């Protein structure tokens, strides 16, 4: 039985987090209501009248659904083969597949633009996704669909971004499912064909994981902003629509139309994403059902070395994951040189020198990196224990058969993912202004939104791990006569140490790459991080040929650091402990 003080402590953390993550939205909504004179219901009903909103919603639903589908198509085969066989350098492979998820979207956008421009391999083989000539242009003319190339580039980039979701959810189950099940199934009549095994074994086992990852892919593609801005310049998602008009939202008697657009769009987005999160939560619980799991090494050893098909799939995925990053690194060394006689490119370190020295009237990379690291470590110190307590509370409620409350809390921890960054930014700004304006002079303020945004991921990683720990292990440890701390360590913590390390590295990486909330706060103080520095440079007029390579140099530092974090986390992670973001 938990002690009263423990219950009170948990209750406090839960209430504080739920308040912290929902108050900004409520605050922003209340201000918009005051400015527009509309109730949320009226704003919802007015949505079709808002400037550009219906088109944005149609495009958002289409691209998010297509992106989720493509993520599954790309991700499942990679996760399948990665899990089924023992791979040399598996740690590095997993790290490479994980990094895209925490890359700042602006860097990803630049990487993909480099991959589809007119010097790219894709263009040379006739796939012109940017200027839409050749096959793509002919397809556009034939179907009357304007800009199919841009759409394709966007959903491929989203699939790249979300690849790790599928791999993290599916690969550990594939790796650890008892091979005896497969053997037994193949002896039965229903399991003799591939389709039969897929239907009667793999779909029940992997289906919830795949659908859960797909629904999260849908969610992240739905709220995509920078990729949409750069890759599909003729279309807007609800999030990019709100970003376009969000600056002047919430101001009384000024540009009230922008408040109306943001209010309507944020309510529609919130409702759709709330539904998605409900689905995700349900699917993840089904995914957590315990199957007969065995040692990863044992299961993989029984299948022999990777087949050729497996190698081609995994290494093609590996190249796909690396390609935009390599393109970005390469671009940091390439300098445009325009003269009266023509344009040429030279290779050199000028951009790196400029980035290091902050020559382009920006912070230097080292200063921005220091800021980023301070915020990331601060975020970790707060987000990990908070996420841990939330996950263990949900788990405790589940054990006590309080499923309704557990489910409500589970969804509440995911809420920050459903709320538009614009609304969070506006809410934090208004809330801090109203309650404690001096907070704007507090140098660690960005930690606050970073915690709100990273805790859902800590919960998503820790909760399945906690569910899979058998309570008997703790009982056995206590029977051995160990003191309470050692009982907890040997009977509980040692089984979830791996996920805790993964959650820590993800929190650090997410905070390092976080852009939206930092950018919104930068409007009220001086908190330039590495990802803000990259965006500042990319948003500048690029008459000066050093601007873009300097941005790419800063992006490279960010990528390397993120990769290093994941590489280290993978080394600490025990086998098979990769499930669930």
């Amino acid at each position, binding site marked *: 039985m938990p002690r009263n003080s423990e219950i009170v402590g948990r209750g406090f953390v839960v209430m504080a987090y739920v308040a912290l993550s929902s108050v900004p939205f409520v605050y922003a909504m209340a201000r918009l209501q005051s400015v527009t004179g509309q109730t949320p219901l009226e704003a919802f009903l007015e949505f079709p009248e808002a*400037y550009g909103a219906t088109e944005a919603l149609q495009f958002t639903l289409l691209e998010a659904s297509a992106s989720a589908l493509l993520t599954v198509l790309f991700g499942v085969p990679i996760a399948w083969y990665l899990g089924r066989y023992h791979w040399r350098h598996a740690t590095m492979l997993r790290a490479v597949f994980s990094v895209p998820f925490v890359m700042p979207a602006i860097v990803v956008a630049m990487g993909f633009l480099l991959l589809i421009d007119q010097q790219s391999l894709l263009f040379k083989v006739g796939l012109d996704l940017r200027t839409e000539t050749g096959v793509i242009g002919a397809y556009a003319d034939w179907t009357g669909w304007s800009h199919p190339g841009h759409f394709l580039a966007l959903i491929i980039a989203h699939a790249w971004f979300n690849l790790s979701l599928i791999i993290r959810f599916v690969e550990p189950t594939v790796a650890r499912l008892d091979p005896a099940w497969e053997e037994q199934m193949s002896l039965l009549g229903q399991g003799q064909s591939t389709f039969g095994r897929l239907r009667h074994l793999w779909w029940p086992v992997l289906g919830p994981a795949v659908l859960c990852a797909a629904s999260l892919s849908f969610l992240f593609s739905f709220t995509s902003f920078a990729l949409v801005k750069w890759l599909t310049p003729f279309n807007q998602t609800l999030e990019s629509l709100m970003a376009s008009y969000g600056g002047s939202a919430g101001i009384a008697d000024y540009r009230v139309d922008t408040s109306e657009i943001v209010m309507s769009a944020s309510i529609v987005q919130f409702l759709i994403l709330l539904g998605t999160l409900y689905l995700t939560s349900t699917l993840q619980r089904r995914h957590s059902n315990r199957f007969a799991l065995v040692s990863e090494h044992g299961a993989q050893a029984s299948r022999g070395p990777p087949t050729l098909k497996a190698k081609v799939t995994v290494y093609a995925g590996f190249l796909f994951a690396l390609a935009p990053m390599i393109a970005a690194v390469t671009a940091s060394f390439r300098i445009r040189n325009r003269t009266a006689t023509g344009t040429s490119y030279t290779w050199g370190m000028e951009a790196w020198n400029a980035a290091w020295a902050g020559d382009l009237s920006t912070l230097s990379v080292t200063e921005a990196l220091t800021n980023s690291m301070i915020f990331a470590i601060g975020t970790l110190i707060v987000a990990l224990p908070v996420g841990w307590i939330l996950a263990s509370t949900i788990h405790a409620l589940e054990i006590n058969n309080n499923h309704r409350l557990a489910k409500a809390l589970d969804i509440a921890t995911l809420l920050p993912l459903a709320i538009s960054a614009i609304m969070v930014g506006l809410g934090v700004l208004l809330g801090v202004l109203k309650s404690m304006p001096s907070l704007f002079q507090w140098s660690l303020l960005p930690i606050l939104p970073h915690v709100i945004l990273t805790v859902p991921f800590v919960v998503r990683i820790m909760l399945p791990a906690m569910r899979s720990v058998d309570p008997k292990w703790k009982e056995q440890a206590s029977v051995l006569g160990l003191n309470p701390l050692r009982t907890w360590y040997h009977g509980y913590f040692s089984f979830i140490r791996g996920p805790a390390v993964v959650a820590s590295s993800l929190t650090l990486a997410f905070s390092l790459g976080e852009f939206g909330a930092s950018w919104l706060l930068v409007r009220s103080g001086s908190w330039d991080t590495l990802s803000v520095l990259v965006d500042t440079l990319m948003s500048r007029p690029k008459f000066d040929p050093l601007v873009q390579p300097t941005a790419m140099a800063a992006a490279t530092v960010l990528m390397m650091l993120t990769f290093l974090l994941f590489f280290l986390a993978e080394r600490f992670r025990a086998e098979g402990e990769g499930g669930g973001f």
Partner: protein
Amino acid sequence: MKIRLMVLASLVLVAPLSGCIESVSTKETCTVLPAGHDDDGTLRILTYDISALSDEVLDDFTTETGIPVEMIKVDDAGGILDQMMLTKEAQQADLMIGLDNTYLPTAIDNCLLRPHETNPDNITAAAAAFYEGPLAVPFDQGDVCLNFDEDMLAEANMSIPTHLNELTEDEWKGKIAFPSPVTSSPGRAFLVATMEYFSLENDNDAMSWWSGMIDNDAIITTGWTEAYETHYTGGYGEYTEGHIGDAWMTVSYCHSPGVEAFYSGNSTHSTSLMIDHASFHQVEYTGLINGAAQINGARLFIDYLLTPEVNGNMPENNLMYSVLEGYDLPETDGYRYHADVPSVVTVMDYEQIHANMDQWLEEWKTATQQA
């Protein structure tokens, strides 16, 4: 059912919370507000990513005055106004740098600025014409107009337009990119130019022309960067990743071809469309924020910004004209040679913009949405 309940609950939950925040009225008689933040000796400047204010420039100011400087950066001039409006109750900056003459009347109308009590002299007549009051001081300027790709027109054997109506013709279909006046300050400046341009004609109005442009598949972008860099064929965009190059004409500054040449060894195939009244003289201002804490530092910085050492270098450092008498664009690498100077720019005054800007934006949205 559960989802429906949650949805209803969330809507109902939020509905009564509007009472938490009082309505904020902005139209009031201006009074000097107390400091919105503590004065810790640091001068906080609200600006966009203004490249003229390099670390070196800021360090020199700190060395001279002993006042450290912190920059709070937003996207553009519109972002500066939005931020000052949003934080009106407790301003977080002392000095704004970057509001242009299409935004300044709104800032003054909403009491966002306070008298600067500095005495700038040596300001050009063009920079001083729009506003000479005590609340804002010009620090750079330039004319916003249409730029076009000379090579593309020559290749297609097209003649240079002499009237904006020619742009609604078939040969220009889908070949012009406009930054939206709702979200971009150059876009807004060009909207003002078209308002004057068509007001001088009897049988035409600006909104019909804008509808005509949308019917002619004009590309509307969120900001200047997307229009110039992604779509325009005549600028540096063709050398950047993601360039689409479907627009032979766009909105930029009349001196943008000069900037192109400056960074390209005196070569450019971009030039400006010189049609009377089809350009707008944009002036950017600095001003003391109403609610500032570090007032002395802000005043000193205004003076510093107008010194020949800082302001005279605006063309190289901020790609805009200086506001000081006697300073022009440098001749290096064809900067001045390729910069076009319109003979007749739009002369919309403070009162006209103050009275009409919101209405024009609404009309523009209606015209472009209905087209």
